[in-house]
């Protein structure tokens, strides 16, 4: 099989993994003239595909042959997809060739499970080893690990990679039993704890080293600087509350950098166990927004998803939905309120809140000031007091307030050929999860 065909199969096999981030790596570069590449700072999306996704890494599988039978996955053993396998050298060469042309900023390597977890891990690690040790590659490397692989191998993977990840896939063991019978939640969490420990140790070691030497340059980090995971949404009947509680638990316990939510999408080799219809894309978007609120806005899951309502409102962003349920909190005075309270105003992001806090030290802010900060006035006005503004209380109390914010009539079930019109701001949000 020629290289082009292999690339076709093994990139196609990898595309259902949503994560493609390349940020948060330790700073390294190649100014010593020996190696290739650099990392550090904000990740770069070198391209975008028409599905709106960022292309920053060469994302491929080493092989798409797999012993497991995860029903949402095109590579499961029950699928009749054509199988292919890269040699480690082929992946190494592709990565270097793509990198030098500035198509990508690194490699995201994963693999179907062949023979055993350890055997598979060894193959994946070999690619990273060659890149780092033979070619002195200093670009970004993200390795997907298998929870059942031995700790020694996971340690080794972490020494070469900037990021490692294990997919949790589904939020409960019940769902795993049905759709991914070889996967085990306890094993996965254990492996994540192991990785967290290594990340912490390496962080401490680096801090200690910083006190002695000032700036170690262009040195690969002793261990990956972060781990992330992915959860598939809409393949089982888990509620958003279940999904977000699991994510929240992982953020706290193993300090994940990111949880990716991947709306289940139809695959060319459908399984009998799966719904034919994918969930609306907007559900994934709402989950990202809620996730953002948990991590950066001081919300907790219970506030966003009260017991009686375990799924996010698809029509309204989760902060707005929360505000509508908690109207007694408003109106909030933007010239006096604390940062925490400002964060809770629908339509205000952390960046604008910081601007408000800075600017109000010198003058009392008016609506015109907000407008200059590009705040969406229509959205914030019912909820705030400004120097020249006080909302009509009747509106805040009215049962029509929800109506006021609903998007115009549109089809909610997104269909493939005509996605609903989204504003560019919406689209950007969908990508970054930012509100």
């Amino acid at each position, binding site marked *: 099989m020629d290289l*082009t065909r292999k*690339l*076709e*199969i093994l*990139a*196609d096999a990898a*595309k*259902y993994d949503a994560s493609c981030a390349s940020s948060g790596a330790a700073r390294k*570069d*190649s*100014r010593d*003239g*020996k*190696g*290739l590449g*650099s990392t550090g700072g*904000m990740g*770069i*999306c070198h*391209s*975008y595909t*028409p599905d*709106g*996704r*960022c*292309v920053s890494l*060469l994302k491929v599988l080493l092989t798409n042959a797999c*012993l497991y039978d995860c029903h949402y996955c095109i590579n499961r*053993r*029950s699928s*009749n997809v054509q199988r292919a396998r890269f040699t480690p050298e082929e992946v190494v060469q592709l990565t270097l060739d*793509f990198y*030098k*042309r*500035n*198509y990508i900023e690194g490699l995201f390597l994963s693999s179907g499970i062949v*023979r*055993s977890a350890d055997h598979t891990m060894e193959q994946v690690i070999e690619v990273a080893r060659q890149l780092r040790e033979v070619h002195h590659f200093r670009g970004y490397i993200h390795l997907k690990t298998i929870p059942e692989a031995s700790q020694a191998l996971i340690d080794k993977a972490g020494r070469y990679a900037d990021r490692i990840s294990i997919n949790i896939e589904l939020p409960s063991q019940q769902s795993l039993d049905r759709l991914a019978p070889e996967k*085990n939640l306890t094993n996965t969490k254990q492996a994540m704890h192991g990785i967290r420990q290594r990340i912490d140790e390496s962080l401490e070691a680096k801090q200690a080293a910083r006190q002695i030497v000032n700036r170690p340059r262009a040195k690969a980090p002793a261990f990956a600087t972060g781990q992330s995971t992915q959860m598939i949404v809409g393949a089982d009947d888990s509620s958003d509350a279940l999904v977000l509680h699991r994510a929240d638990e992982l953020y706290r316990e193993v300090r994940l950098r990111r949880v990716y939510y991947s709306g289940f*999408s*139809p695959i*060319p*080799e*459908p*399984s*009998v*166990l799966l719904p034919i219809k994918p969930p609306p*894309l907007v559900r994934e978007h709402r989950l990202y927004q809620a996730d953002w609120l948990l991590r950066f806005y001081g919300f907790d899951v219970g506030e966003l998803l009260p017991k009686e309502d375990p799924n996010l409102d698809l029509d309204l962003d989760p902060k707005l939905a929360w505000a509508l349920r908690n109207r007694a909190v408003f109106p909030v005075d933007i010239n006096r309120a604390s940062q925490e309270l400002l964060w809770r105003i629908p339509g205000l992001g952390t960046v604008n809140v910081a601007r408000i806090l*800075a*600017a109000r*030290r010198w003058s009392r*802010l008016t609506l015109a000031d907000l407008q*200059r*900060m590009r705040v969406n006035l229509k959205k914030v006005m019912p909820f705030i007091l400004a120097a020249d503004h006080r909302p009509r209380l009747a509106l805040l109390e009215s049962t029509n307030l929800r109506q006021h914010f609903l998007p115009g009539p549109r089809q909610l079930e997104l269909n*493939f050929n005509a*996605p609903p019109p*989204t504003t*560019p701001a919406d*689209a950007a949000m*969908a990508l970054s999860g930012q509100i």
Partner: protein
Amino acid sequence: MTHTAQIQPTFEVWRSKARELLRQGVTPENVDWVDASQTASLLAEEPANYQTAPNASVKVPADFLRLAQNVCAHTDERRFAILYRLLHRLTLGGEKHLLGMPSDRDMHQCNAWAKAVSRDIHKMHAFVRFRLVGVNEPNGREQFVAWFEPEYRITRLAAPFFEKRFASMDWSILTPDECVSWDGEKLTFMPGMSRHDAPAADAHDDLWRTYYRSIFNPARLKVQAMQSEMPMKYWKNLPEAEIIHDLIASSETRVRTMIATPERPVKPSPDNAYLRKLHAQQHAD
């Protein structure tokens, strides 16, 4: 008295001119800033004096210099004047807190310009595509050339990124305003060139398009999301952009086919030692 400040449109030149005017206490309304590269006359041109030691009496925060660097790279003809007004207010005008006031008109304008410029820099880092043109025989270094059309005059601001990332190759980036090349030792800046001076393609572009085609998921078409991050003005220099239309056009049929495909039955577990162990473990739990 009105001063005419006719300058080459770079941050360094603006800075030394502004410093001089400030030292003389010239107020913003009395300066006419003229972009020398946009006017036929080269008369008033004075050599840029990059080395002038900063006047100890005029101190500005580092944040201002960072802002000014980006603003100068913008192409709006008002930029030098507004930037000077900001500088004047910040120093002689005594408005020390100006930088912390994003709602101030001048700040707001300068921030908007700086933001547009930094976005352009970011896109340049992302969308430059190098083409292999040969190997430097004596030292074996590969040589690459790229053609790029940034919106603003950002070659100098964008170059250090490429130096760090591609220090071990020889490369040049050609743009209409200014070109830069790296030989392993230093960055060299040259006047702008034309797209015909750069190679049109690279042997790896096909493989890259194969990747781009395969990583795209036709079941999640979001064309607007793509375009807001990768505006069409960049497409003409991206090898993968050629196939975007085909990918969009064929996606509907591809999804229909997926949905119409009969479901695959579940295959029994193969005889594999590792799987047997795994299953035994699961049942024990």
